[in-house]
Every structure is written in C-alpha cells, then in structure tokens.
C-alpha cells in the first residue's frame, strides 16, 4: 500500500538510506514465508508484502522508528533470525514496516559467575552456545534449532527444547528484557530497571513477564525486544565442540562422562512409565524424541542413508524395502533419545545404572543399531547443537506440525495414539502427504522447565510446490481439529497456524468461547496501554470489550 514518502524519509533519516528498502523484490523476500501457503488465498506462498523493510542497529533507532510509525499510523513487525508465516505482516490492507533486526547481533555480556548472558536479537543459539561452552556453561536451544534467535525464543515464543528437561525453558530462563513498546517507549524489566543488572526479570522493578510473553509469547505482535538476559546452565563437556567427518551427518565423539542412547519401548504405557521413572530419578541432560520426525516406518531408512555423504533419496527408497530395515523400524517404533552427562565419569556410570534399572522395570531397551558408535556420535552432535533441525523439511520442503499439546505422561500416552490414527487415516485417504506411517510424533521431554510435562507434534510433510499436496495438508489440519474435539483434547498447533489466515471476527468468536476469556481481556487492556494506536498485530491475542464470558475484567 502506498504511504507518505515523508514517513519513508523520516525512517531513512534514522537508519541511513542503505538500511531501508521498498524495492518490491526485496519486500517479497520478507513476504515469502514458510506456512503461508496453508493460510493464504490461492495457497500463495506470500504473506502480505511489507510497506518497507528497515535495518536498525540500536535500541535508539528502533525507538525512533516506532515513533515515526506512531506518527504515520504504520504497523510494526519485527523479525530477527526467524521464519514462520507470523513473522510477516498479517493483513494486505495495513501498511506495515518490517523491522529486520540482523544488525543487532551482539553478545552484550556473559556473566560467568551468575550464569547470565545478555544478547541482542540477532544472536543465534549456536553462537551463544559456542561462547558459553568455553566457560563450562550451556544454553537451552529451542526445538526449532540453533539457527534461532535467543531473544525471539525467550521473549516471543514457547522456548522449549530437548535440553529444557535439564536447563529449563527459555520462557522461564528469561531474566530481563529491554522492550520498545509499540508506542515507542523503552521499558526495562525487573532488576534492570533498578540499575541492579540483568539477573532477575521479576524485580526489584516492574515485573513484565506476564505482560510481554505469557505462555505463547507475543510473536512480534507487541513491539520490539531489543535485548534480553538469559539464564545459563552447567556444561560438563569440551570447551569447543569438534565435530568429525564429512557432511551432512557430522559426528561428535562421546566423552567418558557422557552416554548417548536411543531407547525403545513396547507400548505407549511403557513409554509413560519409562519417562516418569527417568524424571523421578533426575537423570539425563537431554531428552528428546528426534528421529521419528521422518515417520516411524521410514526413520531407519532415512537416517542410515543420511549417515552417508553421497546418500540420496533414491537410496532411502531402496533401503525402506529391506526387511532388515523394516525390522529396525519396528524395533524403534516407539522410541526416544536420551543423553546422560555427568559432572564426573562416576556420576554418569551411576546414571547409566539407574537407566538400566528403569529399563529392566519398564521393558524398555536400547535400539541396537542406533546405539552403535557412528549413529550415537551423530545423535550426540545433532542433539547437543541442534544444527540439523531443518531436517524437519527433509522429505520435500514442506512440514507442518499438528497436535503438540503438552501434559503429564499419562495425557501424552493417551493422545499420541489418537494423533497417530488420525494422521495415518489422512495419509491413506490422499497421497498428498508423505506416506511415512501415522507416527511422525516428535518432541522434547519437557514443555516446562525441569520436565514432567511435555508433548509431541506430528510432522506432516507435504510438497509446497504442489497445490494438491498443500491442500491435503490443510485438510489434515482441520481433521486434526475435529479429532481433538471428538476426543476431548485441547486444540493443537495446527489451530494456531490456521488462525493466521482467519479474519479478526472468526478469531474473536473462537476466543470468546475459551474457558478463561479474562486472560484475553487482560491482554486487551495491556494493548490499550502499550499500543494505543494498535500498531502491533494480532499475534498478541486479545478480545474486544464485551465478548466472551463476563468476568471482572470484561466489565471493566
């Protein structure tokens, strides 16, 4: 949408001409986003094109940009390392400036003693992990992998990952924020605002955790986070990771104080029992169900081919027909990966004994081929760094995660078979989805810090270059919603994804039926305060006054 050149020039004056663009091709590179084709008219791969894209270098520049946007009524959408359709502007008829934060890429400080790092938005998990490991520390890398921004995962989204089990969720590890509100104010949270440093997001000073993030985070819908402090965790491995071998399956040697296993179980009941025992005994550094993203039927064929630098998908096809591979698929059908790391060799030996005892009790077993040195070293590399997370897209470039509800192990063991049956049914009804077996459930062993509560998402692979395949995926998303409703299960990730394509009224109508609508009214009041001109988008959810069940906030 055309907008005043005065606004463009005002922003240009802030950042310099080389750091702002409204070239249509440049703007398309921001509009083109993963999952857009699932929600946009005609399955377009483009979200709405931003009005301009700008690259600020400092908090002051971000603040000045926000103020210009307030003056001219331009929507604000920050993006850091991220992707997802919600990283783009939401509506075609709303001029939106995309604030690309890639120039804000510094690690501000690492406080080794207090185990806190302060970073700007374009610092990736891989970069910070590499630096803190030199100090015997580590960070929780979110499930989306180490390419992601720490600020984004901690301030604006879930923040869970394979190591959350030991290191906590980034939503909880968030120890302070520097936040430029949509209105253009700079707000510092907790101890930071009292000049006491970055050690506590809750005080002394304003505690804004519940305002800026909640469970989901604002996903770029409530201004721009320009710095955050993140809690670090102990690391008992090498100061520098030294992967071995050729691409793609780099291998990380396993030191004496570490064990890497793929554990199989005979049933979902046994899975829950094994999980609970591991959790109760407080063993493990990383807990994840990783390789099943390829689907339980095909996982061994894919990953054992992946170990070869010259392996191709044709080799996967051949391998999948090998009876030995099918046997291995059955052996690992319900399985997970666990990494044990001890402060000493003796400690990991103890953890090993405990794990053996748990397995003997629950009927769990080590999946032999996946525990051999080559695959174990590959697993070690994969899960310590999470540098291969885009294998999520390995089949054909399109993946959508359905389900992903979290709960206690008994909840997971009950919903997993429903998710598996539904996915399998949809695969059989249409060849629009990759036929990998109904169980492509993947996820980390912790959706909240410390574990005990977790969930899996179905890895639904489709071809973004094939409209029929895209539409098969959309159908599966609606089917998954129906499956949830039919089985009394809360709606999952597919619902959150689909919502991006819906009109406000449809979303509000759904929200108004939520069990706790007061949360959404509370968020409306937050928005009214910090975003009076509504320049953030609806990724920060709220309900208009008067909608939903009456309660004290609705009335106020």
């Amino acid at each position, binding site marked *: 949408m055309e907008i005043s050149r005065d606004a463009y020039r005002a922003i240009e004056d802030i950042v310099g001409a080389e750091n702002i663009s409204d070239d249509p091709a440049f703007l398309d590179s921001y509009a083109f986003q993963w999952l857009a084709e699932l929600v946009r008219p005609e399955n377009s791969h483009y979200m709405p094109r931003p009005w301009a894209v700008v690259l600020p270098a400092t908090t002051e520049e971000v603040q000045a940009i926000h103020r210009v946007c307030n003056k001219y009524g331009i929507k604000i959408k920050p993006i850091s390392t991220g992707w997802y359709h919600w990283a783009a502007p939401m509506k075609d008829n709303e001029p939106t400036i995309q604030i690309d934060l890639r120039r804000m890429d510094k690690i501000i400080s690492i406080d080794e003693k207090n185990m806190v790092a302060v970073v700007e938005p374009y610092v990736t998990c891989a970069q910070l992990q590499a630096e803190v490991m030199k100090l015997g520390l580590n960070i929780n890398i979110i499930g989306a992998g180490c390419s992601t921004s720490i600020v984004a995962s901690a301030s604006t989204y879930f923040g869970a990952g394979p190591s959350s089990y030991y290191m906590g969720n980034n939503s909880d590890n968030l120890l302070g924020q520097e936040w430029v509100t949509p209105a253009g104010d700079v707000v510092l949270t907790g101890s930071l605002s009292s000049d006491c440093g970055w050690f506590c997001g809750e005080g002394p000073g304003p505690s804004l955790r519940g305002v800026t993030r909640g469970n989901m985070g604002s996903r770029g819908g409530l201004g721009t986070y320009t710095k955050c402090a993140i809690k670090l965790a102990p690391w008992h491995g090498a100061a520098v990771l030294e992967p071995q071998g050729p691409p793609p399956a780099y291998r990380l040697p396993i030191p004496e104080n570490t064990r890497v296993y793929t554990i199989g179980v005979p049933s979902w009941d046994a899975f829950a029992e094994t999980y609970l025992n591991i959790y109760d005994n407080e063993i493990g550094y990383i807990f994840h169900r990783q390789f099943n993203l390829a689907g339980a039927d095909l996982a061994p064929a894919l990953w054992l081919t992946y170990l070869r630098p010259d392996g*191709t998908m044709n080799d996967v096809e051949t391998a999948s027909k090998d009876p030995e591979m099918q046997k291995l698929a059955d052996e690992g059908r319900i399985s997970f990966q666990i990494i044990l790391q001890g402060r000493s060799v003796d400690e990991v030996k103890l953890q090993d004994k405990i794990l053996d005892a748990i397995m003997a009790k629950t009927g769990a077993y080590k999946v032999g081929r996946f525990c051999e040195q080559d695959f174990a070293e590959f697993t070690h590399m994969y899960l310590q760094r999470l540098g291969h997370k885009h294998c999520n897209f390995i089949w054909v470039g399109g993946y959508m995660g359905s389900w992903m509800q979290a709960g206690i192990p008994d909840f997971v063991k009950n919903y997993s078979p429903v998710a598996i049956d539904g996915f399998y049914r949809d695969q059989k009804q249409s060849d629009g989805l990759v036929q990998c077996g109904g169980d492509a459930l993947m996820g980390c062993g912790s959706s909240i810090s410390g574990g005990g509560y977790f969930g899996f998402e179905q890895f639904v692979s489709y071809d973004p270059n094939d409209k029929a395949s895209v539409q098969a995926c959309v159908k599966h998303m609606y089917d998954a919603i129906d499956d949830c409703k039919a089985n009394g299960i809360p709606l999952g990730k597919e619902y959150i994804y689909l919502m991006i394509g819906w009109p406000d009224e449809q979303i509000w109508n759904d929200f108004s039926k939520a069990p706790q609508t007061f949360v959404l009214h509370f968020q409306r009041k937050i928005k009214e305060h910090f975003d009076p001109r509504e320049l953030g988008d609806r990724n920060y959810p709220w309900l208009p006054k008067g909608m939903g069940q009456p309660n004290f906030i609705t009335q106020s």
Partner: protein
Amino acid sequence: MALEDFRADAMRCTRCAYCKWIPFDHVKSWKYAKGCPSIEAGKFHSYSAGGRLVTALSLMDGRSTVTPAVEDSVFKCTMCGLCDVSCKLCRYDMEPLAAMSELRATLVEDGHVPAQVEPILKSLRTEFNMLQKPRAERGNWAKELGLKDLSKEQAEVVFHAGCRYSFDGDLGHVAKASVKILKQAGLDFGIMGENESCCGGRAHTMGHRKDMHTRATHNLTAWKKAGVKTIVTPCSDCYHAFKRLYASTEGSEIQVLHMVEIVDQLLKDGKLKLTKAVNKKVTYHDPCHLGRQGEPFVAWNGVEKKIFGQAVAYEPARPRYNGAFGIYEAPRNILKAIPGLQFVEMERIKESAWCCGSGGGCKETYPDFALSTANQRLDEAQSTGADAIVSACPWCERNFLDANQEGASKLEVLDIIALVEQAL
C-alpha cells in the same frame, strides 16, 4: 536449464536461513559463525541464497522487475557455495548455487550487466584474459624455461598457468615453481604459452556463459590437437572450470588435476622429498573452487519423481554436491610434510571455509566488497597466531595481498606451491 527449472527450489525454500551461516555443528565462536559474505555486506534477506530464490520467483511471477537494487543483490555475491553446503545439510531437493547461477545468467541475457563488467569482457573476448593484459605477454613467465610448446608439439599433460599466474607479477613465481616440481618428478608435459587462453570460469560465474563456451571451445580444441589427456593447474578457479564447468557444459572428459594433488601424490610415492626447513607458522585457506566446489563432476540427466507419496527423488538418482568430496586433505598433507612448518587451522575450514571475497567476479565488479570479505578472512587467520596465510589459488592470494595493503593484517600471503619450492 532455465530459471523456470528452479521454480520448485524456490517454492520449497523454507526461508530457514541456514544459507547465511556455516554448518552450525562447526560453529566455534560468535565471530566466525557467519558464512555468507554477500549478506554480511548487503544485509537485506535478498542478499542470501534464500532471498535470491524468492527474487527469482518474484521476477518469474511478474510481482517485481529488475531494478538497480535487484541487480546489486544478484551480482554482489562471490558465488562461493557455502550456502549450498549449509542448505544441503538438511535438504536433498535444493540446488541454491545452481539457481543463483541461473538467475545471474538470466539477468545477463536480458541485458542487465553491471557497467564495470564491460571492459573486462572486452579483454576476455579480444585478449583471452580478464586482467586487461595483452595476449602476447601471456607466456612471458615461461620464457627461457625450455618448456615444450604444445601449440607446436605433443604431450599428454598440459600445464595451464591461468590468467592470474601468467600476468600477475607478484604471483608469476608460482607457475615457475610448479613447472620446476613437474620437471623434477620427470613428468612429460608442455604449456600453451601465449596461446593459452582464460578458462572462462569467471565469466561463467558472472553470468556470461557464452563467453565461457567460446573459451572452452578454444581450449578443448587446442588440447585435442596437442594430444592432451590431463590438465594440471595451480589455479583453483581454472581447476573448477575445467573439472566441473567444462564437464557439465561441454561434455569434457579430460582428467583435471590441481598442483596440490600432484604434489601430494609425489610425496606419497616418495618421488618428491621436502628437506629444507621452512620455519613459519601458517594457516591454510581453502579456495572455494578447490574445496567445496572441487568435487568430481558426475553426469546426470534426469527428472524429479515422487516417492512415498510426496517425497522428492530423481530418476535416475541425482548426484549430490554437498562439499563432502572436495580437495581438502592434499594441501594439508603437503603442509604437514614441510620440515619446520607449524600448521594451525582457522575455525572455518574445508566445506565451511569463509570465502576470500574474490569469486563470482566480485574482485572486478565490487572491489570494496571483495576486500572487506578478504579482511574478515585475514582477521580470522591472524586469530590463529599464524605468521602467514597459505592458499592454493591466485585469486584468493591476490585479494589477500590487496587487503593486506589496506587493512590491519600483517600476515604474509603465500602460495602452497611456492612453499613447497622453498622446502625442496
């Protein structure tokens, strides 16, 4: 191929941004995690491989047109191929480097050629080199060396010095050192002298494919006439052109060897002995065209097919270029064999190496970008405590030498063959 052939790559790009970073498993620090010189300079997403795929899609669909900004984003790229390696860590259905090459060629065909390219192309077309030097001076480096002239004689091996070693006064000694080693090994070889022609590889990576075809035709005809079966070159740019581009576009089957492969084999066979100490601490820079793009060419003419419903495979299987089989060990074996030499590695090595900045025609068309990229590599080399940065490509060396003059680096810039000569 045509740009439309890469539509599927564009549609299947997930905008994951792996193309901007070295393979994440190899990240050892904040500073040296970055992998793409182009986006470091251009900053907008369009300066990455993923961004260029969207640009291609946007142009094909008529959503945008070629503007000066688009031209800049397409051509200000060293075509180093790091993005290709990082993308293929997780993907079997993407060819980002090939797609970017096609986008360049398409723009060139449509007349979008940066103005600064014109004199370089003129030199290539008339003087058979891109350095704007007289063709007649090409063989000067070999005068009085008594080498067989294959424009008049026959030999199965041709030594191809390449433009940079032939004309660059600071680097000409490498060509001489190379032939000295070949002579010492008793190899029967010759040179084309002033009839040697540019390989055309740089023209190809700049999008001027017809110019490479002309050079390739010239070279292949001359070699055939001379009975050549093997080409030996100390230049990684030429190596890549002969080994990969001539094979893929001209159907050439001539064996191509880089000097480091020859020296490595001679050392292994005991036909070459390095006896003199070279008391230096050095680090090695992997040239993109010898390393990740130096993999053997495998002919393929196939089509996409779907397996497991929607997964992408190819009929027949498509060869996979992911940097796994580049020439990495030969130069390292050589350095380790030099007495007195202390060899240390940088953080970004082999398939993860940071580009010198010279590739893709950037040395000629975007000299400031080329030098800033080189300076970042010199900074990384200095961080190892090395006295010198060693490479196996004159384009890398020239760019490092130029950056040294302007930047803060005090590193010596050395060619690996010159080092070998010192140790003989």
